[in-house]
């Protein structure tokens, strides 16, 4: 790898870590609003409130952590698969600074809460709250990245395109379209029309942006870390094209019960149920590939994390197709059940993919191994044990709300005390997950200084130093 390629990857890599430390921490802090609301009154002195902190939280984890770690992985993976160096690495590098600037500016403007300015006010679209000024910067940065990546694919030395390239390049383009729709096309609609376009954006932010990029990364990591060829080429084609066919239409399942033309709502429900096809195609491929060589899961942390990510992905999507039907949706909608689902996808599946990618990339761009097996295992077990508990507490809180309001006809105000305990566990377990992220950041930053030298072919994580062999004294 050229030095300037490494520089670009490193910038996106380390920025994503900063946001990973910050975003979830804000989430844990703001969850206190539901336990001891007066404890967060101090936020008002800072011109802040729970609801603004929530925007910080979602924007940081999506644009700060997920997007930046995925781009770091893309800048690393695409040249490898195309067998050329990254084209225009400088452009990709400066795009990284621009992206960081946009995320920081986004936070500053949300905090300022300017009212009624066309460029500087928050926008009313979930996950696209960034004011127009920030959107413009993000679009420029995204165009720079797409430019660099597409030029790399065009300059490739290997004629055949592996499925990851399809997902990553296609995903970058669909990300661009989705972002433009969510932030700019919405401006052309008023009234409920605005909400319908908003819905298109809302699910494609996860379906056409995070999902294809994350899956593309996993498609690269799993075979290479498991040292096995991909299980089925046919399935990978099926998965890719059915994803592209079914995902973009699902958006309105976020607002299934708003007044709208029924046919388009049904269209979104049917698309959502059909999504089980691409999901199963991907999941089978991801799990059957390492099945020939399961022992690698013990040695290879990138493999372990990405396989776990896939398991969470499967669970998310089973839950998704289930809750998208009217029969279930009316019961869980508006409750924290939905937020639990969102965390299963983003904190469970896609953060695992992101971490797997970072662990895989780190030695290859810095020349050092991660220094401590114990610490990586800790992070892994937090993701494998504490995170599911966090998810369950979240779901529990949603179900209690559902029962209390839908079945017992209690008002929301009365329900507040009924869900206190579930929300308490949510905060507790959430704090555990945040701790895992902080450990992960610490591990990587410390490995920069103390990690042993890495050679291609050795493990990403340093083996524990062999205990000094006890001399056997022969008489």
């Amino acid at each position, binding site marked *: 790898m050229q030095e300037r390629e490494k520089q670009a990857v490193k910038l996106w890599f380390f920025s994503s870590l900063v946001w990973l430390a910050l975003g979830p921490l804000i989430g844990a802090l703001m969850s206190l609003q539901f336990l001891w609301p007066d404890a967060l009154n101090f936020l008002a002195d800072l011109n802040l409130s729970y609801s603004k902190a929530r925007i910080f939280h979602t924007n940081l984890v999506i644009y700060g952590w997920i997007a930046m770690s995925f781009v770091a992985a893309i800048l690393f993976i695409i040249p490898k698969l195309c067998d050329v160096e990254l084209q225009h690495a400088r452009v990709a590098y400066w795009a990284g600074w621009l992206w960081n600037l946009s995320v920081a500016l986004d936070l500053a403007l949300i905090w300022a809460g300017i009212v009624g300015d066309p460029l500087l006010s928050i926008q*009313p679209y979930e996950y696209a709250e960034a004011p127009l000024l920030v959107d413009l910067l993000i679009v420029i940065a995204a165009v720079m990245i797409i430019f660099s990546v597409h030029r790399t694919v065009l300059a490739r030395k290997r004629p055949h395109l592996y499925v990851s390239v399809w997902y990553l390049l296609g995903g970058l383009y669909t990300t661009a379209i989705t972002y433009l729709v969510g932030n700019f096309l919405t401006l052309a609609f008023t009234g409920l029309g605005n909400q319908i*376009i908003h819905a298109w954006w809302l699910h494609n932010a996860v379906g056409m942006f995070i999902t294809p990029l994350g899956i593309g990364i996993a498609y690269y990591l799993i075979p290479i870390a498991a040292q096995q060829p991909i299980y089925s080429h046919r399935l990978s084609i099926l998965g890719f094209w059915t994803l592209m066919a079914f995902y973009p239409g699902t958006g309105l399942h976020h607002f299934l019960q708003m007044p709208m033309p029924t046919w388009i709502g049904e269209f979104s429900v049917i698309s959502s149920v059909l999504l089980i096809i691409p999901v199963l195609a991907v999941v089978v491929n991801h799990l059957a590939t390492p099945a020939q060589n399961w022992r690698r899961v013990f040695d290879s942390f990138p493999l372990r994390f990405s396989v776990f990510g896939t398991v969470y992905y499967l669970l998310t999507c089973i839950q998704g197709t289930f809750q998208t039907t009217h029969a279930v949706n009316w019961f869980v909608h508006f409750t924290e059940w939905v937020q639990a689902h969102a965390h299963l996808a983003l904190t469970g599946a896609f953060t695992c993919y992101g971490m797997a990618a970072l662990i895989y990339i780190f030695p290859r761009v810095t020349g050092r191994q991660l220094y401590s097996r114990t610490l990586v295992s800790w992070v892994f077990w937090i993701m494998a044990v504490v995170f599911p508990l966090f998810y369950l507490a979240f779901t529990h809180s949603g179900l209690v709300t559902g029962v209390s309001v839908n079945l017992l006809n209690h008002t929301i105000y009365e329900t507040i005390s009924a869900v206190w305990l579930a929300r308490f566990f949510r905060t507790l377990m959430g704090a555990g997950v945040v701790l895992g992220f902080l450990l992960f950041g610490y591990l990587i930053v410390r490995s920069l200084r103390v990690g042993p030298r890495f050679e291609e072919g050795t493990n990403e994580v340093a083996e524990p130093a062999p205990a000094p062999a006890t001399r056997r004294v022969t008489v």
Partner: protein
Amino acid sequence: MKRFITLALLAVWMVLPGWAQHEHQPRPSPTEAPAIYWVLVALAVVAIVGFMLWTLYGKMRPGRMTTLSYHALGALVIIMTLFTLVLYVIPAQQAQQLPATARAWDWKPGEILQDPAGSGLSGEPYRGYLVYLANGCTYCHTLYLRPEDLKTGWAEGARPNEVSQMGDFVRYPFTMLGTQRDGPDLTVIGRKIPDMQYQIDHLVDPRRFKPKSVMPSYRYLSERDLRDLAAYLVSLGNDPQKLRAGVAPTPKPTEDPKIAKGRELYRSLGCVGCHSLDGSPNVGPSFKGLWEREVEVVLPDGTTTRVIADGAYIRESITQASAKVVKGFPNVMPSFAERVTESDLDALVEYIKSLR
């Protein structure tokens, strides 16, 4: 064989939820899909099934892809994305062109609303909506009522004729229907609590009125932002024409000063947050027609009795709310024993008496 079983299972997975669809289908269709939609759906189904069969059974000849075919497939990715976008744009166009309902929210930039409670406050609802946006109220509150909400606890005090329709939203510059309800729906909050001063006080310190509330304090908002936001809240669920004309139940000039004081306390102590004046239940029962009505109450030991709502009962309800809990309502009313004087109690009783 294995492939057939998989396909069959998949088919079952997809058909099963379809059966359950109609039972909870929230509303009848307000518009029809254009005919071209059904043609496209039929074509898409054929294409998808054909494609799946091809990937599962077809012959694959890797290495036959030319640069041109790669570009064609790349373009196909983008076309597929844009195709559904077009499908969404059609109903979006239909939705924004529907005629407005009579009660549709309709406040233009710069238009001023006078507090219907007669406090002399005024604010700009349109700008208030932007304040609502800038402070993220939408992450806890929704702005639409479903038919289900009337049968469940989601919308206390909402009436069947208030269920949202598409035409209610056409005058909004953009919509924030919301996906989460950590607090009550606000579609008709202005009809339930038409009082700007209360709304401002509640925004500044929600737990002053609702001790268990988890709503954050918005005391950092400027005076103007608070007034506009309160004006927006009051504009919700009220006919804009009537509000402009001033439906304010302006105090009668000859009013007993005790009643006037009671009305003032009703607001400043926050009774307005839980008790309406128009007969619809909120968190607590409405005060309208309460005086000397027979009320069924639950005693602390769990037995129910009937009492007449006279002065003594009302005083006890205020100072010792959990001594007799009205049947069908939760025991959440805070005790005001430390906050009211004897003459305050008198005034409140007189006020309630005046609300026949």
